[in-house]
């Protein structure tokens, strides 16, 4: 046991902080190797970098109605992996009821007992209050000894649809106000289970079914605007692509010619083009179709004796990474968005390296995540686009189908490390891994962009 490690069990919602005191520890730049053996909901062996990440505390309050808000924000900040989240004893759980204000901390804004929180290791303190029907969230800069920002927001009632997403947005505002970085709290992940497409919030709540028919579905993919997604459904031996609207659930089928098997859709960043794989008797190749006019099918690859599939756009829309079997086994290739200049992308040793599949280009453009067969099982790898070097990210169990969070530092993926296949989230900066879902059989995850403010709908 290392000093300074936090032991937290949040299966019951309680966060227990043993010490905000951190011991001096060599600060090692982590390579985010998946060396931790983490079981469901329990964090063991998570590598923290004390002193590198700012400490943040969400202050307990006397208004119990805000306990859910505080709990969600606390968890979002924790899951951002950008803070040492300092949990006050008695805080963080609605079940504990309204907690006493922290000792000697005056509850009157603007002043907090800043020296006390500084002593606890906090750089920021977050306070949530209710004034009438407005929720006021105050971001205290403990180091500077003052208020940095305050947000006033009318949140939907607890339990109402939109409540959690609204609170996630507040958490993202807090992250923006403290670190100047956009967060990933207001994001969702699509995944496939039992042939149907589901959605889940990034914190593992609010699971919902989104595919609408009895046909077997696969390969969900988000449009970069976060308002639409695409997926494939089997139909009479063919694969039909659909584009569905998040808000209205209305879906349209993407034009296909003849009786082909179309799969692995990928939106171009401008949303105008959908790239996908099409399997015919000639093999599988990458095609594009004009989304706006539902026309103009273009074939980007001509495999002949090899298959080309699983396209993914670079965020500038200029290039497409894809899988090709031209070297014998599937490996990750790249081409211009018009299909020219096809070349190997992720290096491999001929005859040694296993199959590589399921590439996804990171939103910041710097990396491509994919999975590769290592000794008969699959592991998640990340390709550095600039240096074209790859590193293995996971090693425990079978790990596959990585998908990037919009912050380009978190990946969701499928792993059987807990004994059954389910979704996990890894932070590449800290190496921390958490389960996203406790249901077996979940696969093919697709992490959304930041979910845009919804057009107000009738309640």
């Amino acid at each position, binding site marked *: 046991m290392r000093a300074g490690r936090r032991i937290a069990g949040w299966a019951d919602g309680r966060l227990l902080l043993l010490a905000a005191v951190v011991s001096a520890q060599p600060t090692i730049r982590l390579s985010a190797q998946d060396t931790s053996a983490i079981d469901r909901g329990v964090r063991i062996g998570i590598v923290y970098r004390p002193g590198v990440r700012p400490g943040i505390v969400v202050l307990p309050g006397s208004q119990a109605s805000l306990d859910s808000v505080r709990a969600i924000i606390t968890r979002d900040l924790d899951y951002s992996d950008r803070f040492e989240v300092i949990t006050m004893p008695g805080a963080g759980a609605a079940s504990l009821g309204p907690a006493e204000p922290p000792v000697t901390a005056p509850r009157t804004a603007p002043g907090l007992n800043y020296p006390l929180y500084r002593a606890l290791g906090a750089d920021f303190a977050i306070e949530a209050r209710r004034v009438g029907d407005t929720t006021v969230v105050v971001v205290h800069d403990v180091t500077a000894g003052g208020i940095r920002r305050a947000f006033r927001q009318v949140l939907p009632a607890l339990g109402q649809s939109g409540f959690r997403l609204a609170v996630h947005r507040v958490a993202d505002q807090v992250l923006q106000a403290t670190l100047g970085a956009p967060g990933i709290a207001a994001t969702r992940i699509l995944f496939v289970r039992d042939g149907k497409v589901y959605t889940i919030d990034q914190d593992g709540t609010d699971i919902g079914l989104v595919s609408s028919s009895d046909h077997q579905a696969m390969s969900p993919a988000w449009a970069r605007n976060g308002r639409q997604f695409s997926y494939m459904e*089997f139909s009479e031996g063919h694969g039909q692509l659909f584009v569905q609207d998040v808000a209205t659930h209305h879906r349209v089928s993407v034009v296909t010619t003849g009786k082909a098997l179309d799969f692995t859709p990928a939106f171009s960043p401008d949303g105008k083009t959908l790239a996908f794989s099409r399997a015919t008797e000639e093999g599988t190749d990458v095609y594009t179709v004009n989304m706006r006019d539902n026309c103009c099918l273009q074939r980007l690859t001509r495999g002949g004796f090899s298959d080309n599939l*699983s396209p993914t756009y670079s965020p500038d829309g200029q290039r497409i990474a894809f899988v090709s079997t031209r070297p014998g086994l599937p490996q990750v290739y790249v081409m211009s968005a018009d299909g020219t200049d096809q070349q190997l992308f992720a290096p491999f040793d001929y005859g040694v390296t296993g199959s590589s599949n399921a590439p996804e280009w990171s939103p910041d453009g710097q990396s491509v995540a994919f999975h590769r067969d290592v000794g008969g099982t699959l592991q998640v790898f990340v390709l550095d686009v600039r240096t074209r070097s790859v590193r293995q990210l996971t090693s425990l169990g079978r790990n596959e189908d990585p998908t990037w969070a919009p912050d380009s530092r978190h990946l969701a993926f499928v792993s059987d490390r807990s004994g059954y296949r389910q979704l996990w989230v890894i932070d590449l900066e800290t190496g921390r891994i958490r389960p996203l879902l406790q249901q077996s059989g979940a696969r093919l995850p697709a992490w959304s962009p930041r979910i845009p403010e919804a057009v107000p709908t009738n309640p």
Partner: protein
Amino acid sequence: MKRVHSLVLMGFGVTLVAACAKKEPEVAPVPQANADSVAAAERARADSIAADSARRAQEEAERLARQRAADSAAAVAAAAAEVRNTLAAMIHFDFDKANIRPDDAGMLDQKVAILNANPDLRIRINGHCDERGSDEYNLALGNRRSTAAKNYLVSHGVDASRIETASYGEERPVAMGHDEDSWAQNRRDEFEILSGGDVLRRP
């Protein structure tokens, strides 16, 4: 008037009854053997026996005919079922491979013969994979497997337009285990009748 008529009729009836009653009851004639009638009876009986046996024979013949028809229908059905089974017999593949195994070529030859004997028959070949590969890559691999079988059939003279191909990747396993035995069963092509399969003839 009516009553008068009834009375008249009634009187008539009484008279008739009286007239009959007046006759002495006749002595019943003693039955005597009549050679003609005996012969006639014999004849009639023989005729009846003959007719009967003819009828029976005819019935028997009809029954046999029905039986034969039933037998032959059953035989046709059995033949069709056998043909259907032969046609539906799956072929299997090595891990991450889509080439036809030499020991499966004989099964495909049988399917060629069936397709040749039943020119209206149209089929779809569905390629499948085991769960070990990548989910999406397996769609491409399953497609290669179904296409490989189609190419074999076409290269042996079957018209390409009679065969569709499809792939389900690893989405529809037949064996649910997570072991080599299950994987081997799941790496397969299935042969599905699309049309013209109602009356299948033996090659």
